[in-house]
């Protein structure tokens, strides 16, 4: 058989062309594979819960208007949209629609000063390193169930003597339960708590309110921490104005694991960093709450500390001030701020004049704020170690957006009047809490061997 070679080559060249073109088209075809679809997530802002007034008056600062809110009241499930950014005092906790900013709850239970806390979305496990169950204690642990079913919660108290048997708590649907801390570990001065949610959507708050007889010693929220870490940043601390209302400070430590921890501490201030006496090399026994005085009275305010441990550890700092009155504030560990506009920290200080302190190896933070008067301002703070920024006037909403790649933590100091002191950790918006997008897929119903 005689083959026409040129024709054969032409045909095979055409075949190669067809195959090549198909390959090119297939590779360049825009498509989303099911695998990609499966891993795509919903960028949502989980709803947050703000504590109730807890016996005093309270208010909530919302980061924006027109948010849906619901009162955690077993008698109603109505949700309504609020046109305001300030919510008045309520004897019920408040469920706030998720948004890019974080609401702040202020509490005036203490006659001496106010307490402030960031509202949160709760979690399976919340740790509170702070509070007291001593005679002066008026502390309340508020466990809020925003779900529509009953929740089961276990509270694990820790004291200076070690852990105590957990207390089981059932919280009815859409209600809260306020537990006296004094009843959890009677007589214990140094306490910490771990609230574990077994079932339900639960958020907990711990208000440390102390009285000595008729004298109100002040109040502060103890912010919740989700997990122990080996490195802890505590920032935005103050020791008051030198001389006049000098503060005393102590560090509360808890090692939740089964091994004692060896810690070292570094103080960051405008004067530089140093290791404080008594905290430079310290062994912390496990599962025991340890309070260690923090000798920083001569340290210029504000400042921050870094605690490094060979075991996961919790830590917080209690600052007590007294000048014509008493107040104290708990500063809890900080988490690095996320960079990027979409996840910038945003909060409404409701006309306060906060002092912000940022910690990091290389700090560069862009701030945008709105004064209570409506005027707007921007600033970029930068530096190394510790950098602070004091609000030039009463401000409402502020967004905090780290610029660099280095991790930056931040805290806010709120002073109101002579002695009123509050600490707030600066946290990025809750947008990071993405969930996998559920897809309807009939394969779910196909029998398969697990």
């Amino acid at each position, binding site marked *: 058989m005689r083959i026409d070679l040129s024709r054969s080559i032409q045909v095979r060249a055409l075949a190669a062309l067809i195959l090549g073109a198909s390959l090119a088209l297939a590779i360049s075809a825009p498509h989303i594979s099911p695998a990609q679809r499966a891993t795509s997530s919903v960028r949502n802002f989980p*709803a947050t819960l703000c504590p109730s007034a807890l016996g005093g008056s309270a208010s909530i600062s919302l980061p924006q208007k027109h948010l849906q809110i619901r009162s955690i009241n077993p008698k109603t499930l109505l949700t309504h949209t609020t046109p305001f950014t300030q919510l008045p005092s309520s004897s019920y906790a408040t469920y706030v629609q998720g948004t890019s900013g974080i609401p702040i709850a202020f509490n005036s239970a203490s006659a001496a000063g106010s307490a402030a806390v960031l509202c949160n979305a709760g979690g399976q496990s919340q740790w509170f390193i702070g509070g007291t169950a001593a005679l002066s204690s008026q502390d309340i642990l508020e466990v809020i169930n925003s779900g529509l079913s009953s929740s089961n919660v276990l509270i694990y108290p820790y004291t200076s003597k070690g852990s105590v048997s957990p207390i089981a708590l059932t919280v009815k649907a859409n209600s809260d339960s306020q537990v006296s801390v004094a009843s959890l570990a009677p007589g214990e001065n140094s306490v910490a708590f771990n609230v574990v949610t077994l079932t339900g959507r639960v958020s907990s708050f711990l208000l440390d309110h102390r009285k000595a007889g008729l004298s109100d010693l002040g109040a502060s929220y103890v912010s919740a921490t989700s997990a122990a870490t080996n490195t802890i940043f505590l920032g935005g601390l103050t020791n008051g104005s030198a001389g006049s209302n000098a503060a005393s400070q102590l560090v509360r430590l808890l090692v939740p694991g089964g091994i004692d921890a060896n810690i070292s501490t570094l103080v960051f201030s405008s004067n530089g960093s140093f290791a404080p006496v008594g905290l430079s090399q310290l062994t912390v026994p496990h599962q025991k709450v340890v309070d260690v005085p923090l000798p920083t009275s001569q340290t210029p305010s504000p400042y921050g500390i870094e605690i490094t441990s060979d075991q996961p550890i919790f830590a917080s700092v209690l600052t007590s001030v007294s000048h014509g009155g008493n107040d104290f504030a708990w500063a809890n560990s900080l988490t690095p701020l996320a960079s990027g506009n979409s996840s910038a920290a945003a909060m409404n200080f409701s006309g306060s004049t906060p002092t912000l302190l940022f910690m990091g190896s290389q700090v560069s933070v862009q701030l945008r704020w709105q004064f209570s008067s409506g005027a707007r301002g921007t600033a970029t703070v930068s530096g190394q170690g510790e950098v602070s920024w004091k609000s030039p006037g009463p401000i409402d909403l502020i967004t905090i957006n780290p610029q660099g790649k280095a991790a930056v933590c931040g805290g806010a100091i709120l002073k109101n009047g002579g002695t009123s002191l509050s600490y707030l950790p600066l946290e990025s918006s809750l947008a990071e809490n993405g969930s996998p997008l559920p897809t309807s*897929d009939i394969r779910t*119903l196909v029998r398969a061997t697990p």
Partner: protein
Amino acid sequence: MVELSDNFFVTAVLVTHDGATWLPQVIAALSAQTRRIDRIISVDTGSHDASVKLLRAAGIVVVEAERNIGYGDAIEIALEHAPTDPTSDTAAAEWIWLIHDDCAPASDALEIMLGELAERPQVVIAGPKLLGWYDRDHLLEAGISIAINGSRWTGLEQREQDQGQQNFTREVLSVSTAAMLVRRSAFVELGGLDPNLALFRDDVDLGWRAHVAGLGAICVGRATVFHAEASASERRVVDVSEAFLHRPLLLDRRNAAYVLLVNSSWWMLPWVSLQLLGTSLLRALYDLVAKLPGYAGDEIAAIGLLLIHPRELFIARSARRKKRLLSPGVVKRFIPPRGSQIRLGLDHVTSLLLDSVARDRSDDGWQSELQSSSFTELGTIDDEFDTPDLSAPIRASIFKNFIRRPDFLAIVFMSLLSLLAGRNRFGQLSGGALSLVPTHARDLFHFYLSAWHPVGMGSSNPAPAWTLIFALASIITLGHLALLVNILFFITPPLAFYIFSRIARSLGVTKNFATVGGFIYVLNPLLWGALNQGRIGTVTLFLLLPVVLLIKPFDWQTGSFTSRRLFALTLLIALIGALSPLLLAIWLLGQVVMLALEIFRSRVELKEVGLRNLIESEVFAPIGRRATFIATPLLLLSPWSFDLLLHPTHWLAAPGVPLSGGGVASTLLFNPGGAGSSPLWLIAPVFLCVTYIALIRALSSLTLILSALLGGAILLSAFHVSAHGSTSNVWSGELLLVATIIVIPPLLQQAKDVIPTLRTSKFGVAHISVGAAVTALSISALAMSVWIVGSANNSQVRGNQPSVVPAFVGALADTPSRPKTVVLSVVGNSTSYFISSGSELSMGDADVADKIPNQIQDAMTQLITGSGLATSKVLGSFGIQYLFIKAPTPVSLSTLIDGIGGFVRISSTANGTMWKILHANSRVEFVSANGARSTLTSGSSDAVGTVSSAGQLTLAQVFDSNWRLLDNGKSVPEEKNASGLPVFTVPGGGSLVLSYDGTIHRALLSLQFLALLVAIVMALPSGRRKVEVPLEELV
């Protein structure tokens, strides 16, 4: 010695009607009788030929009669002209010998019959054995009877040969009037032949009457006559006045019914009537299938003719009653038993089919050598070849026999491979693309016929045509569908090997090379991937698609197609298309293009012919055929095909649960990819074949086709489609299968041509390249075999896998509230869900599944993220009463759901965690005006109940305009609520009936069955009218 028979007087009555063809022989035969006929008289019923002339020339007295008189009337005329002298001695011993003009007795026929009669005084009717006129060994009759369904019963097999088996005398119900010898006195006493039976069945009637009168009839097997059966074989026009439209079959059937109805006992009449009617309908159906509409009409008209003249029946029954001495039951012993009738009927049909196939083959010139009676007739070998070899055959050992049969060994190997690979595939199969196979075919039939499917939130999508195919195919396993699928999964590898190698051989490939081809075909990642992934369509196509090779798909010239071949091909295409919509789409697109080309080519002729004469013109024939190729598969696959036309993406969805295959790279390597498929490094033998083809210059055209197929497969596999309740990339396995099928035979042909030449040529590049190719193929085949054995552990399809939803939910599926369950699965970063109606996802369910409503999607998103406040309320409004998360259940998610509210955890097992959704609606929920809720008892698609007041009825299914609600028989208009659910505002209390109106679905199904019937009838071999059958074949 004087024989007793010598005392008999025999009058032969010869009735002629255009019988000149046979008369000379008949007259000669009568003249040559060894026992002389005493008197011959002939009656000619108006013959147009030379019959009268022939008779007169022979010296026979001829009485001329009207052309349209019946046989009985003609006999009466003859007897009038041949009176018996009552005073004569012969009066008591006169016999009439009725002779047809196409019936020639053997010379001793009369003598033998009279001899038998002489010994049997009670017998008044005798008849000989009837043999064929042309084939004188063909036994036509040896006595006759009638079956209860009216069939003429001879008790003989089809084309039974006379070997003396009937050479004895026996009592019979009657004998044919073709050569009936009847005592004249009895004949007269019985009233002669019934004038209502002008032709056909008059003999049975006379015999029946004789028996009930206490007389007898015998068939004398030793006496023979040769009968041409000119009227029955439609060689002679039936002119009798009773023969409506001159149709012999019509007259025969009518007379058969008449005989039964006038002679049977009165209490037997209903049963006889039913039998007659039923048999007529069945025969008519058979005739229609055999494309003999005229005969079908005869069958029905025969009954009609009797019904319009009932008076005849009454008079005839009355006349018989007067002369009856015995019960009609005396003939029961002559009526054939039902078993014999069925057996002979089946033999008849089988014989017809075999004859038809043999005829077709000879028409096509396929095995024309089969028509030769011996090898010497072929002229290819010497005469001694036909000499039987009487020497003892040398038996080889079994082992040697096996060695000589590589195909047999290969089948054993494939079976073993299949058993090892499918060791986990015993029991009720499910997994991968295969949802649970129902045990019984009736479930699949029910699914196919249903207009509404409770899958997900419900669907009105028509069931895919492949489900009907499997339901019908389960006839093989007596309706046990699960067993059929089990067998299919096990038998496919060896059967595919057998089919492919047989087809390769029929294409000219030698046995050994065909075996190699079978190996390449079966040791294919595509087949084993399809088996492991449960792609039942592709698996079945592995058996079906090679058949297309026999039709030479690239050489189709429709002009040469007979209608039968055309419809057979469209049936095959529809079958393939049902299993692969992708191939159907390609076929239809190709045909549309070719139709357009045909029209374009013939545009001038078409213009000249004009629209009015278009159909009758020759130009239209190829266009019509091409249009048939397009329209018929669509009609055969309706209503599913219409759904494909409405949803174009469904063309790209393979049967079953969507399952993603591999990507571009795997498709390029002829590996379908996906779970359970072979690793890419395992190069498939077929891929090597494609590579070789690309290197062979002579097969460059094939390379082009292959590249187009492979390119198409690659391109398709890169795209994802959302259909059948999920999203997956397009399964292009069928294109790879087509490429596989067309690549192997040409390569084997090449090998067959090249390899023998290597023996004689010098060692060189050719030897090395062929050696390398064979080595590579062998290694590839061996590696594939090893992988296949191990692939059982990766198979997604397994037997008796655990149920997805807990058993109690399944049990609730049939309760009045028909709760639904949303099943959630979290695997890694992927979260998926679907709605279960409680029952298992069964075969075909995925193919009809619709998109889940957006409200549910939003609710599920809120459920997962914990951001929803009313998730349970939304899910509950859709009738979802349970939430089930398959294990492993993420603790955080279950905690979240616990707290969301409206979900009450009711169980947590190793299979998953279950919540009950509080206050969820039932499938059909009625809310009265005062807010009271009640549940209507619900079926899978309907519901009934009684309500006491006005209110609103909500159906927890997706909205469809075909839902109908009747309130006390009055229709209530359907509305859509905010959630997109159908609601009905019931004006007042009363009885409510909710149903789904599937009229359109049923109409389309009817269209399908009609099209299927027509296509099957057209594709089946045609029956022949008797006039078309050569006389030599009949008599």
